[in-house]
């Protein structure tokens, strides 16, 4: 039996939730004040995911850097792999929001896309 303690982020309450786990099965979720907390806690324990945002260099653009993000959530454990996949990446201006900067980042199946328009200098 393992107990994982989490802070719920679904609202400002920040309920302290305890999730009881038996091997891979969730036995109980306690401490949450509402249903949303239950859903959040189950997801966090079994499949925590995040959006990762960063920047890459732009060549010949009106700005030196362009901001990027993973188009969808990626597994939390893959965050730094995704970051490393951006090392040394340079893109040429113009860049538009949604342009794919790195396809299938770190084997997650998720593309990293631009989140800003950077025009040519």
């Amino acid at each position: 039996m393992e107990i994982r303690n989490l802070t719920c982020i679904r609202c400002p309450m920040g309920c302290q939730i305890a999730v009881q786990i038996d091997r891979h099965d969730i036995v109980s979720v306690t401490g949450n004040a509402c249903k949303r907390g239950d859903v959040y806690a189950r997801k966090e324990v079994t499949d925590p995911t995040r959006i990762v945002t960063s920047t890459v260099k732009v060549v010949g653009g009106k700005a030196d850097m362009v901001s990027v993000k993973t188009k969808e959530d990626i597994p939390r454990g893959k965050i730094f792999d995704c970051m490393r996949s951006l090392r040394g990446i340079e893109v040429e201006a113009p860049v538009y929001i949604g342009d794919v900067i790195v396809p299938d980042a770190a084997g997650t199946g998720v593309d990293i896309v631009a989140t800003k328009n950077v025009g040519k200098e």
Partner: protein
Amino acid sequence: MKNYDIVIIGGGPAGLAAAVSAKRNGIDSILILERDKELGGILNQCIHNGFGLHMFREELTGPEYAQRFIDQVNALGIAYCLNTMVMDISHEKVVTAMNRTDGLLEIRAKAVILAMGCRERSRGALNIPGYRPAGIYSAGTAQRLVNMEGLMPGREIVILGSGDIGLIMARRMTLEGAKVKVVAELMPYSGGLKRNIVQCLDDYGIPLKLSHTVVDINGKERIESVTLAEVDATGKPVPGTEEEYSCDTLLLSVGLIPENELSSGMGVQLNNVTSGPDVNESLETNIEGVFACGNVLHVHDLVDFVSEEAKTAGKNAAAYVKGERSAGGGREIRLKPMDGVRYTVPISIDTARMSEDLTVRFRVGAVFRDCYVSAYFDGERAVHTKRRIMAPGEMEEIRLTKEQLLKYPDLKAITVKIEEA
């Protein structure tokens, strides 16, 4: 001298939304003055996601959120000047601005919308003792260096202040290869959103030390370490609790201050609590035809609310220019914050001028659980809504309707306060 119906000072989220709203309410002659090289304001350096949940029902990054409004400004053909600094605004609404190509510009406006945003409090404002080496940055400056220039301010970081920018920067610095050793917070609670504490600190095992502050900064050329200590209930460091953290960088996220030097220069009356203008139900300052919205009015937690507030300011400015606004009833209801409510925006309501409903925004001075927000119409409790939790880091609001206010023809003051269950 150029003439415009509405001149908007600042092309950040507030200025953009105000411009779009004024245009949609029938004003064609609008000019946005922006000091930076692009529209979007501080959103351009806020590359993290989490913007737009209220406004667009999706999670956007800062630049994406800004672009939605920039696209509207462009589609509506609203004029703007970039790299243009407003130097002065006269009481008569003559705006003096400056840029490289036009030199000094004078623009006469029928209405002015103040949307200059805010700045960060600096080390000096906290009187943190110690040396003054390189490596002390406000979190926003570090954010600009990292996100806009691709530069790392340092490698080993201590952050003072758990406001949202500090939390966001803890994650950003970590992701880009720095080691964030600790986040210290003077107050017994964080000033940031819960979401950011979990996803920016807990995810990366960064400790958050509540009721702690920096009591010494060491290192003569570049920071070598900082000393943290616990503080007592009055905020004073407790002797014997000092702990030294070696680091090369101290980031400060210790609060934001509305930037109202232009406003006070033109005679706008400022509020002691918010440091923003005192405004009425139309978000109009004490100078007729001068409106304010966004972080220059009061510091917001979510940009979505900035956009919403700016929309109201734009609409009211449009009505003012078109002469569609009623003369006002001459009867002013004052709003009084009390018992845990630090301030209200607006501070007064003229029922003849208010729209059907009105959002009153405020912040609380401490963490309140299972309490009520109440509004007393003179002596009578007219609003009484339960809140599971309220915290200083989050903006609160109540809504009042015209219908409700008209039931009290002699109403002089509305007191907004927090009441225990």
